[in-house]
């Protein structure tokens, strides 16, 4: 149903062109929240093609699919728009206790990709972005100003941000304002 999603509306429409170099909306994705205990790790791995990250605050992925550790029994699964893994997962996991909930439309992705990305984030986020403290591949829920986000470092200067759609406008405006001082 990727075509349908493309036909859908993005919460950024209201921003009427407010922009900043290195700030962009991420491509559409299919998103699921997977919850469960150790006994879902291997069946999930079979379906996803890689092992669920079990280290705190780490992401894993392959073939355009990603699993972000958000909690000891919680992963955010990101797959290319329309590529659904939920049925396969449910089948593979079978009777093992788990929960799988689609959140494709609950949140949107923002990509911050600029040499001073970490500094821009430091305007509103209290985490330490030194590579030793927040290495590439780290992901976590956190706060940016008054918005909860999922922050995922995919490169030294590249951060992917997942945010609930009604906070996207606020977050975007704030990031643009935050970036202004580095312009």
């Amino acid at each position, binding site marked *: 149903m990727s075509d349908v999603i493309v036909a859908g509306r993005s919460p950024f429409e209201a921003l009427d062109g407010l922009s900043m170099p290195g700030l962009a909306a991420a491509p559409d994705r299919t998103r699921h929240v997977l919850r469960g205990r150790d006994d879902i790790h291997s069946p999930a791995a079979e379906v996803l093609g890689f092992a669920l990250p079990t280290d*705190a*605050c780490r992401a894993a992925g392959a073939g355009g699919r990603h699993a972000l550790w*958000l*909690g000891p029994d919680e992963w955010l699964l990101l797959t290319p728009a329309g590529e659904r893994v939920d049925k396969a997962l449910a089948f593979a996991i079978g009777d093992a206790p788990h929960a799988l909930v689609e959140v494709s439309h609950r949140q949107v992705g923002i990509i911050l990709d600029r040499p001073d990305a970490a500094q821009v984030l430091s305007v509103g986020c*209290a*985490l330490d972005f030194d590579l030793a403290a927040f290495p590439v591949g780290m992901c976590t*829920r*956190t*706060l940016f100003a008054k918005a909860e986000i999922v922050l995922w470092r995919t490169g030294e200067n590249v951060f992917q941000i997942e945010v609930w759609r009604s906070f996207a406008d606020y977050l975007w405006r704030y990031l643009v304002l935050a970036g202004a001082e580095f312009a």
Partner: protein
Amino acid sequence: MLLITCPYCGPRPEIEFAHGGEAHIARPQDPSSLGVEDWTEFLYMRANPKGVHAERWRHLHGCARFFNALRDTTTDQFVATYKTGEPRPDLTAVTA
């Protein structure tokens, strides 16, 4: 802004957390069997100590887990944080 060590995520800024009140107050298995005094004790009475306090925190804007902490309420320095369900650490062991 306190720096709180989540047992899962490590040290994080206080604003990511919610405070959960006194720890180790288990909800009775069968509340209806409790006398009114015992129920009131469970519902409302709190130690509110001046000194080391066992309290609940939730890493709300992080891993979203509840966990427990020992914190000195006269200094706000944490003595230990530990996962829900784990026993309150023996201070003599911790501070040793």
